[in-house]
């Protein structure tokens, strides 16, 4: 028994050593990348893109399902984006609420019977609507599929070479699209670009425009703010440098239409279609046998805000779905694992994703179980176990504070001193329960996916209407 326990303890220790070594590498890479990114931007670059006739026009796709509470605000926001030429295609994916009526009322929609070049196999399209007040707005009503099905239905209706997919609960910074499109102007071989996502809870909106950028008010919301900082500000920046950014959030993706079509579009049966699609984009872009010189970019200053759950029930449902989606995405593209054909993506990105993202909850739970067994059997004292937990806590704290430092020093997120202290407090609290809760939910998700073969999307988000500007 003891040799087995000893082997497991060493396994956990080695695992955590490599996990944190990779995280540290990503932090440092991310910091360098963000600094280089900032210093390469010309003085009036975004003004030039905004006023240039030659900027590539963008088709924005907004899939929506039962989003009547927020959809008008989202559409107003995207219609008002500072960009020379863009169209907005809202796809109502079989909503059972008033999504279409509220849109019709707000934008004076009228029905057209034919629009776009062709339709591909998706759930049936029930109607296409246009607005005389907003010539660049198209609304599509279709039978319920999933988010991916809605995106696939919209693509043939787009008229521009760049597609930007955003979630219906998202709010973009007014210059967000300019920042996302910039890499495409600099590199004709770019296939896709991703931006930063942050919680929108705490934003104050006025007629579709952000007027104040506060932080979420609940502890759970603040905890997710920290998670998003860690995940986007350094992890994805660093991973992108290594050609291993295997998850572009569905909240904000800009992709060439030709690449979207070449990859076969989103997979309608995916639990997390954004993750699965990102892996296939990587597969397409970094395939050494097929690819031309293509690339995926990450714009750390292109910001999109999305609503995060502030109730534990919804949070658990979301994380459960993410964990099942991660496993499904990896297993569906298992042939990329350790495959040199896909370069660093196959040799490092996919294994990292599997070992340090998808399976991390299992190892962490194993560590907790081991701790209990060792203490129970008297093989380790409580002090020794607490020292090991203190080690995990302090290393995690250090890495998260580094992420906050990068954000602060790059001025990518300007918050008040009061909000700054709230953020710091939630950094200290993250590993004192929240992290363990996430691990537990992920473990349940893993069990449900691997054993129960659960493939549904979980509980839908309960939308809160954005804060109006105070009088």
């Amino acid at each position, binding site marked *: 028994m003891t040799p087995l326990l000893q082997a497991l303890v060493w396994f956990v220790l080695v695992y955590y050593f490599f996990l944190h070594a990779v995280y540290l590498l990503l932090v440092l890479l991310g910091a360098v990348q963000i600094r280089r990114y900032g210093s390469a931007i010309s003085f*009036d670059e975004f003004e030039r893109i905004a006023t240039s006739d030659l900027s590539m026009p963008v088709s924005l796709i907004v899939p929506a399902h039962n989003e009547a509470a927020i959809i008008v605000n989202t559409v107003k926001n995207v219609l008002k984006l500072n960009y020379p030429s863009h169209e907005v295609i809202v796809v109502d994916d079989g909503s059972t609420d008033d999504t279409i009526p509220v849109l019709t009322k707000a934008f004076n929609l009228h029905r057209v*019977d034919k629009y776009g070049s062709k339709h591909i196999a998706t759930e049936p399209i029930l109607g296409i609507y246009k607005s005389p007040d907003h010539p660049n707005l198209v609304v599509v009503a279709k039978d319920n599929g999933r988010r991916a099905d809605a995106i696939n239905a919209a693509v043939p209706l787009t008229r521009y070479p760049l597609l930007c997919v955003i979630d219906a609960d998202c709010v973009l910074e007014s210059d967000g699209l300019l920042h996302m499109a910039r890499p*495409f102007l600099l590199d*004709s071989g770019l296939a896709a670009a991703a931006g930063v996502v942050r919680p929108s809870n705490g934003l104050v909106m006025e007629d579709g425009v952000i007027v104040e950028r506060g932080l979420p008010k609940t502890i759970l919301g603040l905890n997710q703010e920290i998670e998003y900082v860690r995940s986007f500000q350094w992890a994805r920046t660093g991973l992108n440098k290594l050609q291993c950014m295997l998850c572009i959030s569905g909240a904000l993706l800009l992709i060439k239409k030709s690449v979207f079509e070449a990859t076969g579009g989103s997979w309608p049966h995916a639990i997390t279609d954004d993750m699965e699609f990102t892996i296939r984009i990587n597969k397409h872009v970094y395939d050494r046998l097929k690819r031309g010189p293509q690339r995926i970019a990450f714009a750390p200053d292109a910001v999109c805000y999305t609503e995060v759950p502030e109730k534990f029930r919804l949070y658990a449902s979301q994380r459960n779905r993410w964990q099942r989606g991660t496993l499904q995405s990896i297993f569906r593209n298992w042939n990329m694992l350790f495959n040199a054909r896909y370069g660093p993506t196959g040799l490092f990105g996919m294994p990292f994703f599997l070992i340090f993202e998808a399976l991390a909850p299992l190892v962490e739970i194993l560590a907790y179980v081991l701790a209990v067994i060792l203490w129970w059997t008297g093989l380790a004292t409580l002090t020794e176990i607490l020292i090991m937990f203190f080690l995990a806590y302090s290393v995690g704290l250090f890495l998260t504070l580094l992420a906050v430092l990068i954000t*602060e020093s790059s001025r990518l997120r300007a918050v008040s001193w009061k909000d700054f202290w709230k953020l710091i407090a939630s950094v200290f609290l993250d590993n004192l329960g929240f992290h363990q809760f996430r691990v537990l939910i992920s473990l349940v998700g893993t069990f449900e996916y691997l054993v129960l073969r659960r493939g549904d999307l979980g509980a839908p988000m309960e939308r809160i209407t954005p804060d109006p500007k105070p009088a």
Partner: protein
Amino acid sequence: MEILAPNLIDTALRVAIIAALMSAAVLVVCIAVRWNFDRQFKRNAHFRREAEPLIAAYVAGRAEAGEVTGILRRAPAEALPLLMEISDRLEPDERPRLHPLFAALELTNKETARLKHWRWEMRLRAAERLGYLGDPASAPALRAALQDEVLAVRFAAARALVALGDEEALEPILLSFDLPGDMNQRRVAELLYAFGPGTTDRLLAIVQNPQGTFSDSAICTATRVLGMLRAQKAVAPLADLLTSPEFRVRLHATRALGLLGDRSVLPQLSPLTEDPSWEVRNVAVQAVGKLGAPADVPRLQKALGDQAWWVRFSAGSALYGLGDAGIDALRDTMNTSTDRYARDISRQILEEHRVSEARERKL
């Protein structure tokens, strides 16, 4: 048997304490960075409150340069971005008014030297600043920077040369950006357009390319700029390019002629609606729509049945743009054509423009 050996626990404790101390250090640095940004922000805001009205008064002719330069010299680090920002807000012909203020900062030599800095970001910064500083003495160094290995630096140098009005640099700029890819051509075209109509003759010489110095890509860029400039004297030379064996040249010449708006080229332009390349056909249909008269309706009506959706869509839009004659042709196609694709696109165009008969027919 000990699972957690004492030296392992010792090491873990040491690492944990080091990580905790480093966390504390990072937190302190975080606070310091924030505090410093706040301080800089306040200082900058204070400087702007003081300098901006003075600069505005100087630009409006209500103050002398000497009154402004004193305050600018006191804080050149804040003054330069402020002047650059104000320069961007001014019309191009008003910008030289700021040159004495930029000159007061005495930065030309420093920035020219920086064009050879080992870090490309510094070279980029230097090139863009030299464009604002407006000192013609920096032109030779900027022309040398057109050979920089980093494309972004070359673009910044080219932009600076355009800002300096150095028309002699037009050919070197075109040669230094002789790159594949439509996007680069578009960026260079936009940049050269800023030179204004004064460069028309130079561009025409490139388009005619008697000595074969310029590649097809450079000719395409020059063609694009001539179209953007609406240079009427370019009509005949561009019409000659419509028979080029290179499809990109035909494409850009067609597009430029559409922009120039001279109907005399229609006899040469119209046959391109049947070009082997769908991209050329698409642009030709658009150009005929812009220049055309009711006499061109049959040609556009024929394009409604093109194999490429974009050509059909452009033909439909062009017909709609021609007014009643075009709309009648769309209705006629929708009602009587045997080509399903032509009928579909006609109905789609009429519906999108809310021409009532399309809906009535559907109903």
